[in-house]
């Protein structure tokens, strides 16, 4: 156990790509936690998906030792979808390093994450990063930070996470400025689970921060909300290699394995205490509210049970995913899943496919609607296909969000145009500095979850950023557009859209599907309909030739391999009625404007 005054607990927070994980690399090096030989860029980004995409998806904690201090560091993700990872990391800390890219300046998640840290009353050690870049403008950015966030320029550190310049000074400032944790080792034990993942060999592994008392290996622990007792099989710390310890005292951060196999018994936000001397629960977390929904279906119906198991396990790892069984006329048995955003949805889907070896079909994403029936009853609908006929409803309400856009002044015009096209209402416009503007819009969430983000990025050459938060429901003139393949409605492609956009949606979706659906043995009509009236129509003509015509002499092996590939291709197609639809069609159909 380390004395409290020699412990610091902090998270690194920033906008996406401002260099959090790279700074973590330098800190791992500086403190000798990872040797030069074992170092690799963004060391803590250990998931394949993180490494491929170059972004952090899951917060990671590590224990560093430096100048006699124990520093519990959490590297957090910067993408807007993963704000929840940040908020739960903050609950295990007394302070944060707030990084700001010295060439980009303050962006949307800089603000959002900084405000979160302020709400938690955390000490903020702010640093300008990437000062090695020729485009860095440290003075100007410092002035901006001072004006917008109220952090005095002289308190700002200037660092390069790439070269290591200023990193040692930053670590000294962390030790000096961030308060030591408080806690009483003699009080009843209280430890907060701020992350949990499922390990197929060990069961549930939880990341914990001890507030009072101590976690001891072998002790009988009580999980307060789950009302269950478990033995502490192993407790340990990440150095970053997981290393067992006998005890974790107040202020310490580590991991806990307690032989828990069942999903839902070691939830994030759970308080762990001593079964023989229980304490009350710490303040947990509000469960994050999913914003975007889609149906996930196995390509092969037989995989339904596997998908359910996979979702169960994944949810322990990522409690922000929700799922409920549903049945689709076209797709069979599957789940309606809720996500924090589009990137989150994409990533969950990819993880399910890779980590659980499933082939999945995802339906178009949508938001939750509130439907007011004629008798005044209100129903929440997260699936377009459960939308009642329009003559049975008096109103359909859709969720709105307050969107904060930060942009260089040059792009204000194009962003206003985009927001207006998406039915946005301007709420506020403010200059953060002479060349940077904050726009606040009230926008239907449903307009954001299509391709708003991509459009914003391409219109501003990547310079604008956005953040959003829920702003309640409002009635809108919405209709359901049905898409029919071979005269059968396919819920995967149908959507609820504003009446003015129904025709446009139908036309784009049918055209896209015509490109994506391969020719079949017969003509396949593709139609879009609103309330039974066809608004767009395309046809995939029957294919007439699919044969190896060339002579390959005695090379039968090659013929057979081609046949194998063809069979595999067919297997990966989703059979909708008699039409074979490739999985890519479901994904690409979500990107109607490309």
């Amino acid at each position: 156990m380390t004395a409290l005054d020699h412990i610091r607990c902090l998270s690194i927070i920033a906008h996406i790509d401002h260099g959090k994980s790279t700074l973590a690399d330098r800190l791992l090096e500086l403190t000798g936690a990872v040797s030069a030989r074992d170092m690799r860029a963004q060391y803590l980004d250990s998931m394949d998906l993180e490494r491929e995409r170059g972004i952090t998806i899951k917060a990671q904690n590590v224990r560093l030792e430096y100048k006699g201090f124990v520093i519990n560091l959490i590297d957090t993700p910067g993408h807007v979808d993963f704000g929840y990872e940040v908020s739960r990391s903050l609950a295990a800390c007394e302070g944060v390093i707030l990084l700001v890219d010295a060439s980009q300046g303050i962006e949307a998640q800089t603000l959002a994450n900084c405000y979160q840290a302020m709400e938690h009353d955390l000490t903020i050690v702010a640093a300008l990063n990437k000062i090695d870049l020729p485009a860095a403008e440290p003075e100007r950015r410092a002035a901006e930070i001072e004006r917008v966030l109220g952090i005095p320029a002289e308190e700002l550190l200037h660092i390069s996470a790439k070269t290591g310049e200023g990193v040692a000074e930053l670590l000294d400032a962390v030790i000096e400025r961030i308060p030591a944790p408080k806690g009483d080792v003699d009080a009843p034990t209280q430890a907060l689970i701020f992350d949990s993942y499922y390990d197929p060999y060990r069961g549930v592994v939880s990341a914990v921060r001890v507030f009072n008392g101590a976690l001891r290996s072998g002790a009988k622990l009580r999980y307060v909300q789950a009302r269950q007792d478990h033995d502490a099989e192993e407790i340990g710390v990440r150095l970053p290699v997981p290393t067992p310890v006998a005890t974790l005292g107040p202020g310490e951060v580590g991991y806990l394995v307690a032989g828990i196999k069942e999903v839902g018994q070691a939830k994030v936000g759970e308080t762990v205490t001593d079964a023989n001397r229980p304490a009350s629960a710490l303040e947990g977390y509000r469960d994050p509210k999913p914003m975007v929904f889609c149906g996930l279906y196995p390509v092969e119906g037989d995989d339904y049970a596997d998908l359910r198991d996979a979702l169960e396990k994944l949810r322990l790892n990522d409690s922000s995913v929700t799922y409920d069984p549903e049945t689709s006329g076209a797709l069979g048995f599957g789940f309606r899943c809720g996500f924090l955003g589009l990137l989150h949805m994409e990533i969950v889907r990819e993880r399910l496919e890779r980590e659980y070896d499933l082939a999945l079909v995802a339906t178009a994403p949508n938001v939750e609607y509130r439907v007011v029936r004629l008798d005044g009853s209100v129903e929440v609908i997260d699936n377009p296909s459960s939308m009642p006929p329009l003559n049975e409803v008096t109103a359909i309400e859709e969720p709105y969000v307050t969107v904060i856009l930060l942009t260089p002044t040059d792009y204000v015009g194009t962003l206003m145009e985009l927001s207006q096209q998406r039915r946005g209402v301007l709420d506020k416009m403010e200059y953060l500095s002479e060349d940077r503007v904050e726009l606040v819009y009230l926008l239907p969430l449903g307009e954001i979850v299509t391709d708003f983000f991509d459009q914003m990025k391409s219109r501003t050459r990547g310079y604008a950023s956005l953040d959003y938060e829920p702003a309640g429901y409002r009635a809108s003139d919405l209709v359901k557009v049905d898409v029919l393949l071979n005269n059968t409605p396919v819920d995967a492609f149908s959507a609820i859209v504003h009446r003015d956009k129904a025709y446009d949606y139908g036309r784009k979706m049918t055209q896209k599907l015509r490109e994506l659906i391969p020719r079949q043995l017969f003509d396949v009509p593709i139609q879009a309909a609103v309330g039974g009236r066809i608004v767009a129509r395309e046809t995939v003509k029957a294919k007439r030739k699919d044969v190896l015509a060339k002579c390959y002499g005695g090379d039968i092996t090659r013929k057979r391999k081609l046949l194998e590939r063809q069979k595999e291709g067919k297997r990966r197609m989703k059979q909708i009625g008699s039409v074979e639809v490739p999985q890519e069609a479901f994904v690409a159909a979500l990107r109607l404007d490309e």
Partner: protein
Amino acid sequence: MFGVYVHVPFCAHRCDYCDFATWTDRAHLIDEYVDACVEDLQRRVANGQPDAASVFFGGGTPSLLEADKLVRILDAIPRTAGAEVTVECNPDSVDAAKFAAYRRGGVTRLSFGVQSMRPHVLAALGRTHDPANVQRAVALARDAGFAHVSIDLIYGTPGETMDDWRATLDSAIALGVDHISAYALTVEPATPLGLAVAAGERPAPDDDDQADKYAFADDTLSAAGFEWYEVSNWALPGHECRHNRCYWDGSEYVGIGAAAHGFTGGRRWWNTRTPERYIARIADGPDAVTGDEVLAPAARVEEAFGLALRTRSGATVGRAAAPVIGQLASAGLLTVEEDRIVLTRPGRLLASDLTARLLLAGAPG
């Protein structure tokens, strides 16, 4: 029926569409190569290779070899009485003396790579011969006493009109040959054609155009007395190529020469790809095999099903796929003849799709 395939990996010129194992700059290897083929054969014969009912010299361009060299190889192959011996020929590299020597040496059948009888189509394919050469070559073959002459055609080359294709078929029939193979132009990635198509410099062949031309060929050839016996092959009755049949019906064969494939003792195997390595491997002994596979019983059944379905005899089926077979039959893609299914003309054009579909439905019986 046992067969021997001999690969001759030399050509005078590389056609734009061709990805066969063949080289245009290695004529200096021919003598050593022929020696290596003979050596390979002698070892196999010493190890009990059965008499061949069919021998096929394929390429590349076997007719590039001087006749005595080709006959040396043929002499090293013990054959049954009345064995079929085919030599693939390029119309540019033949003459009366060569054909006479082939005849004396035991060759019974010639196959000419004609591709098209329209000069602009030949140019688009990167072929060097002109249609007049074809007439001359076939006449020489007949004069030399060959009763079995086949030609290869390619249809659906971008730029080839339906009239061009009709003219090619009419001239082909007028040549008086007894066997015609017609292949849809296939774009192979690692060829000049493939690269040009990938770069957008040349159009890709059109599936619908090729389907139309296939139907037209089938009509025209049928009217002239030819019958289809495999997706891409038509023959006068009784004049089917025996060697082709042996690939499709699961007979055993050995492959001699670079890149040649064999199938013996339930094992598919293939030789090293380049002539240099073939020569070196044979010198080192015992053979030049570089890869093989023994198929699991299920894969063998599927492979045999796929091959059989391409032929006029069709494939035998069990009960499992009855519903799928029923649907495909009522869509006019196949006919059911007792326990066999045979593809119709539209069905043949979709053979790859249908085979995969039927296998997934558990069709083989």
